[in-house]
C-alpha cells in the first residue's frame, strides 16, 4: 500500500427521481489497498459504485483518478482507464466458454475491418488459461461453459479477466453473496492476491466478517452518507458492527 490516492471523490451528490441517494460523499482510496465498503441495503453503496464505474454520472461533485479529474460517459471509458467493476450477478454469460467470456468486447482479432475481425481463438484460449493460473484458479479447459463452474470459480474467472486487462482498480459488488463458506474463502484469497499484484480493490458487502480479514481500510455508509472511514488498525470488528447496525 502506498500513500498515493488512486481515486478521490469530492462532494458527490446523486438524486434518483427526488430521492437523495448520495449526499456530499467524499472518499480517498489509496493505491494498492483493499477497501471494504460496507453498509446495509439502501445505504448508497450501489449508487457510489455505479458512479465510479461510469454507469451513472453524479449530479454534482468531482472524481479524480490518479490525480486527474475524470467524467465518465460510459463503463467503457472507465474500463479503458483501468477501473473494472464486477457486478453481483451479471458479470459472465453462462452459456459461453471461459475464454470467450474473458475476452467479451476485447477480443484479439486478425484480418479486421474496422472493429470487426476474426478472433484469434488459439491465442485467446492460451491467454485465458494463463490468466486463470495467475489467480491460482486451475480449471480443465478454456472451452468449459461458465454455467458448469461453481460460484467461487466464476468470481475467479471475472477477477482473472480484470487482471489480464491490467486493471488498476477493481470494484467488487457483493462478490461473496450466495457462496458457501469454502467458495467465499476462495474469493477472499483471489482479492488478497490482487493487492500483491498492485491492484486496488473496493470490496462492497453487507457482511463485515467477509471483508474485515482482508481489508486495509473500511468505509461505512448509511442513508447515502459516509458515516465512518477508518484504517483497520484504528478500529475493531465490534465498533464497525455497532456502526453498521446503529448507523
Amino acid at each position, binding site marked *: 500500500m502506498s500513500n498515493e490516492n488512486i481515486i478521490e471523490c469530492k462532494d458527490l451528490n446523486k438524486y434518483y427521481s427526488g430521492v437523495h441517494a448520495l449526499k456530499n460523499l467524499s472518499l480517498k482510496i489509496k493505491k494498492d489497498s483493499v477497501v471494504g465498503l460496507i453498509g446495509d441495503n439502501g445505504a448508497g453503496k450501489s449508487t457510489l459504485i455505479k458512479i465510479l464505474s461510469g454507469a451513472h454520472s453524479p449530479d454534482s461533485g468531482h472524481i479524480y483518478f490518479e490525480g486527474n479529474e475524470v467524467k465518465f460517459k460510459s463503463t467503457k471509458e472507465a474500463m479503458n482507464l483501468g477501473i473494472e467493476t464486477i457486478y453481483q450477478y*451479471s458479470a459472465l454469460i453462462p*452459456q*459461453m466458454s471461459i475464454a470467450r467470456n474473458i*475476452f*467479451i*468486447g*476485447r477480443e484479439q482479432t486478425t484480418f479486421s475491418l474496422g472493429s470487426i475481425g476474426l478472433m484469434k481463438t488459439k491465442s485467446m484460449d492460451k491467454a485465458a488459461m494463463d490468466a486463470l493460473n495467475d489467480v491460482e484458479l486451475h480449471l480443465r479447459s478454456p472451452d468449459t461453459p461458465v454455467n*458448469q463452474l*461453481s460460484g467461487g470459480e466464476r468470481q475467479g474467472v471475472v477477477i482473472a479477466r480484470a487482471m489480464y486487462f491490467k486493471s488498476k482498480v477493481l470494484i467488487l459488488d457483493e462478490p461473496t453473496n450466495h457462496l458457501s463458506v469454502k467458495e467465499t474463502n476462495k474469493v477472499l484469497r483471489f482479492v488478497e492476491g490482487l493487492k500483491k499484484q498492485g491492484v486496488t480493490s473496493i470490496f462492497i458487502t453487507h457482511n463485515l466478517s467477509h471483508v474485515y480479514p482482508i481489508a486495509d481500510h473500511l468505509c461505512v455508509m448509511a442513508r447515502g452518507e459516509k458515516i465512518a472511514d477508518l484504517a483497520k488498525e484504528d478500529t475493531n470488528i465490534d465498533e464497525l458492527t455497532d456502526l453498521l447496525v446503529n448507523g
Partner: protein
Amino acid sequence: MNTNNLKSILMRPEISTFIMFVVIMTGFFIANENFLSARNIRIVMGITPEYIIVAIGIAILMISGEFDLSVGSVFALVPMTMVQLVHQGMPPWVAIALGLSIGIAVGFVNGFITLRFGIPSFIATLGMLYIARSLTTVATGGFPPPFPHELPNELFVFQFEVFRASLFWMLGVAFIAGIMLHRSNLGNWIYSTGGDTAAASSMGIKTNNVKMFCFILCGFLAGFAGMIQTFRIEAPLPSQGYLLELESIAAAVIGGVSLFGGVGTIFGAAIGAILIRFLESGIIMARIDAEWFRAGLGSLIIISVVFNTWVVRRGENMVHKNQAEENENSSQKNNSVTESKDE
C-alpha cells in the same frame, strides 16, 4: 479426457439433431428406397436452399435474443417489389438492389420499434407480418403480375445435374454467416447479447447495435431467399412464404437454437431446415396422406426440443457429478474441510 471431449460433443444440440436427421432419413429410405434417389434429392434440394437461408437469418436473430415473425411476408414483398419495378421499366439489377433494400428497411424498422420503444420483438414483428403482407398484395394491384424475363433468374436458380445454383448461394451465405457467428468478434457479441444483455452491456458491448444488425441481416436474408423462390417458380405470388415465419423458427429450434437467446449454430439451423423439407418429401414418398406433414412437423418440433433438453441436462449432470467427486477427493485430502458444495 477423451471421453469428456466425446461427451461435450454429444451434448451439443445440433449434433443430436444431426443424429435424428440420420435416423429419419434411414426410416424413410427403408419405407421407400427411391427416397434417396438422385431424382428425389434433386427435387428436395432444389427448393431447400431458400428455406435454409431464411432459417440462418432467424437463427442469428434468435441467438441475439430477438424474434422476427415478419420473414414470411418479407419473403413475398421483396421479390414482388423487384418484379413490379422491372415492369415500371427499371433496369433489372437496380430493381434487385432496391428490392433487397426493402428487406433491409423492414429489418431496420423491426429493430427500431423493438429497441426504441422497448417492446417485445414478437409484437413488433407480428405487426410487420400483417403490414408487409398487405403491402405485397397492394403492390400486385389486384392481380399477380407476370414474371419479367429481363430478371437474371438463371444466375440464382440454374439447374445443374443434381443441384440448383441456389444451393451454392446458400452455401456462400452459410459460410459467411458461420465465419461471422462462430469465428469473428461480432459473433462473440451476438452470443453475449443474447446470453445476458445486462452482462454484455456492462462489458461495453453496444447490445442495441448488435441486435439492430441481426434484425437487418434477418430481413435481408428473408428477402434474398424470397427472390430466389420467385426466380425459381417464375411467378411472383402474393401468398408466397405464407406461414414461413413459423417454419423458420421451427427449423432453428429443431437445430438447437434456444428460444431464450445465446445458444445455437448455423449448422444446426441448416440441418433443421433440411430435415423439415425431407420430412415433407418422405411422408409423400411413403404414400402417407400429405395432410400428415403438419402433424409430423409438429411432433418433430416437440420431440427434438425435448430430446435436446434431455441430452444437455444429462451432460450437465455428468459434469456436476465429476465436480462433486473431485471436491470430495480434495476434501478427503485436506481432511479438514467440512463444507460441501451447494449443488
